[in-house]
């Protein structure tokens, strides 16, 4: 597989590679979905680098010529700018909403607050500690194998959220998900969310055993399959 790091990807996207090198990346992008996705991710980062003003002048000029001479390119830059603006204050924003919620409770009469706190404590004490949720991203037609140190480790009762990338498969309004695994493991259901990029499914209330699991994602037009090795700790 052709490897593409940030520098090589930037050079490719800006048309700086030799013809032979660019040709090798072209071939990899067309033949290997994972290389296509990686270069797409670097393309997004190139827009960020332009906004950071961290590109040298020559590269800035090349970027403007290649990407900002179309309406689509200028719109992508606008999106990148908005994302940076919002990302600049995530912690402050999150804290504000937490304090807002807390302050709304503190404005209640003291007795009511006391009752609420007591009820909350009683609830917490009565609950068994929940197994923590595990999230895992999978790609179609790919095994996420434990031997490559990329498998997933869970508690036997962990809820597992699978993010199933569609790669370039078409989005669908309805998806059915089926998970099969060792020892006759079988689960099926609907996603918690889906869009044009990925389908997210949460598998909970099951007992995992170590082994390889196969996830099948079916729409009216497509069936995508994913595999992952799960290790129960």
């Amino acid at each position, binding site marked *: 597989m052709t490897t593409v790091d940030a520098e090589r990807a930037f050079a490719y*996207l800006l*048309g700086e590679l030799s013809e032979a090198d660019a040709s090798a990346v*072209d*071939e990899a*992008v*067309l033949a290997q*979905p994972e290389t*296509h*996705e*990686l*270069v*797409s*991710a*670097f*393309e*997004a*980062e190139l827009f*960020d*680098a332009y906004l*950071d003003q*961290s590109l040298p002048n020559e590269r800035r000029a090349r970027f403007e*010529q290649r*990407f*900002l*001479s*179309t*309406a*689509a*390119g*200028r719109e992508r830059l*606008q*999106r990148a*700018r*908005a*994302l*940076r*603006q*919002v*990302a*600049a204050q*995530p912690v402050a924003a999150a804290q504000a909403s937490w304090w807002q919620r807390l302050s709304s409770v503190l404005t209640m009469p003291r007795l009511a607050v006391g009752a609420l706190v007591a009820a909350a404590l009683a609830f917490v004490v009565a609950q068994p500690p929940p197994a923590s949720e595990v*999230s895992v*991203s999978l790609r179609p037609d790919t095994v996420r194998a434990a031997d490559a140190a*990329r498998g997933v480790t869970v508690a036997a009762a962990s809820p597992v*959220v699978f*993010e199933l*990338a569609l*790669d*370039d*498969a*078409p989005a669908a309004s309805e998806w059915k998900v089926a998970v099969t695994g060792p020892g006759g493991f079988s689960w099926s259901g609907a996603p918690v*969310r889906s*869009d*044009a*990029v*990925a389908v*997210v499914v949460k598998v909970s209330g099951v007992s995992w055993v170590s082994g390889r699991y196969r996830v099948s994602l079916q729409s009216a*037009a*497509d069936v*995508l399959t994913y595999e992952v090795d799960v290790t129960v700790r």
Partner: protein
Amino acid sequence: MTGPAGVALEGHQLERLLSFLGAADPGSYRRIHARLESFFRWKGLGDGARLADETLDRAARRLADDEVRTQAPMAFLLGVARFVAMEAQRKEAQRRTAEQSATPEPPDERVEAEVTALEGCLEGLLPAERTLVLTYYREGSGRARIESRQKQADSLGIGLNALRIRAFRLRERLEQCVTAKLAETHPSAPSQEGE
């Protein structure tokens, strides 16, 4: 599918192309189409979707004419794509000269609408996803950014490229969500078409 001259491909031409590319199901075909679209965009060409169509049409016609003897479908397709790109680049050079002098900055209210839409879309992500994407794309540069992303990857127990892909998938979702929201709230806003 239609050819460059707007002439529809015949059934057997399309079937032969799909079988040659190993793209018997519609999903595989769309994936190849999407990769071609990126190929054209990364050559600095607008209207990648149309150029991808044109590439596949030309490939189908050449296959039907028995001109092709190669055993490497993607290399063949790339050859056709390069030819289409070369032609398009000539036209693009003329178009850019005319358009580049008029690249307007987006109006302030449009930028504000983007940010508002994005904030709404972020609410639709799971908290862990929101933290991941905002942390990854937080402003910064140089070594500090590299170190911060490495730390983020380490804390998630994944490699840097795996983190990059996860963040990018979320970014794509957000961009699609923002596009949809803006279409609802600003139906008259300029779209990406018409390049």
